[in-house]
């Protein structure tokens, strides 16, 4: 006998993601799922964003890594509320890991929650965490050909941050080629060339983050 199912295989994850989304909405928190390769500058972007928005928004971070607490310690030393998730080998965060982390964060004192996913351009794209926005970071040494190599992640991004623009003269990354490839498959996304080292572009990125926070607050007063 055949039984019709018609359900997403990741149905269980999606249901927990919806719970996370509701919890975050009830606390008026904007969660941003940051996805990128290892070493593209997720933690640096968070630190720079905290500096840029220090009088405007209270920021906390969920750090996802296979192992170690290096990033959470770096953030804590900079005064940022951060909680580490070690996936113990898994190549992505899932909604239940984020759910457990949320239980250990002071949710009444947070405006923006960055969720640093495990460094990986493939697997994180499959798992809804209950975030409000997905942002992808690509650093210039990784090459301008990545949108067509990892299309799933690049089509999901609401914004794309191109980090390490200070290395542009050395690494053969053509920003125009990249922009054409990326905008070709994702026209709506905002694009922010930045340098975590020099701070170039951080102000514009910070404004976009704040605009989205204002939009969310209007939707969910």
């Amino acid at each position, binding site marked *: *006998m*055949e*039984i*019709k*199912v*018609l*359900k*997403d*295989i*990741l*149905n*269980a*994850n999606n249901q927990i993601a919806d719970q996370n989304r509701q919890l975050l909405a009830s606390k008026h928190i904007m969660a941003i799922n940051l996805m990128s390769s290892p070493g593209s500058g997720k933690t640096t972007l968070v630190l720079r964003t905290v500096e840029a928005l220090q009088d405007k928004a209270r920021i906390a971070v969920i750090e996802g890594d296979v192992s170690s607490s290096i990033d959470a310690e770096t953030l804590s030393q900079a005064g940022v509320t951060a909680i580490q998730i070690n996936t113990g080998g*898994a*190549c*992505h965060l*899932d909604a239940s890991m984020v759910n457990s982390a949320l239980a250990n964060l002071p949710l009444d004192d947070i405006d923006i929650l960055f969720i640093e996913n495990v460094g*990986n351009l*493939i*697997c994180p*794209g*499959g*798992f809804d965490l209950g975030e409000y926005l997905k942002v992808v970071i690509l650093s210039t040494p990784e090459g301008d050909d990545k949108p*067509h190599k990892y*299309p*799933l992640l690049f*089509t999901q991004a609401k914004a794309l941050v191109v980090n390490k623009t200070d290395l542009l003269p050395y690494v053969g990354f053509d920003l125009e080629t990249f922009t*054409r*490839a990326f*905008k*070709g*498959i994702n*026209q709506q996304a905002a694009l922010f060339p930045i340098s975590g080292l020099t701070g170039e572009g951080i102000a514009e990125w910070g404004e976009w983050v704040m605009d989205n926070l204002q939009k969310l607050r209007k939707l969910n007063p």
Partner: protein
Amino acid sequence: MHEMSVTMSLLDLVLEEASKAGAGKITGVNIVLGEMTGIIDHYVQANFELLSQNTPAEGAELSFQNIPRQARCRNCAHPFQPTDFEWACPKCQSSEIEITGGSELYVESIEVE
């Protein structure tokens, strides 16, 4: 790359659906799998064989309907399948495209006894 987590969810889902229907044994699972997900069907198959041991789904045959990437040109509306090497519209060469298919990942139906 993350086939193990996907297969664990798949097994939970089919066991739950079979139990709801009062079925004793699952003999087949029909899955719709889009190319954009990056999930490799024979890895799911191998994981499923391991994970389903001593469950009502042990021995179930997995069938995959693989959906290729699909796109539509934003310039001339031509529908086409981007390849691994070429993402521009084959008709007008525009790289302004919209992805219209290939991200599916769901269970269509299960076969039970």
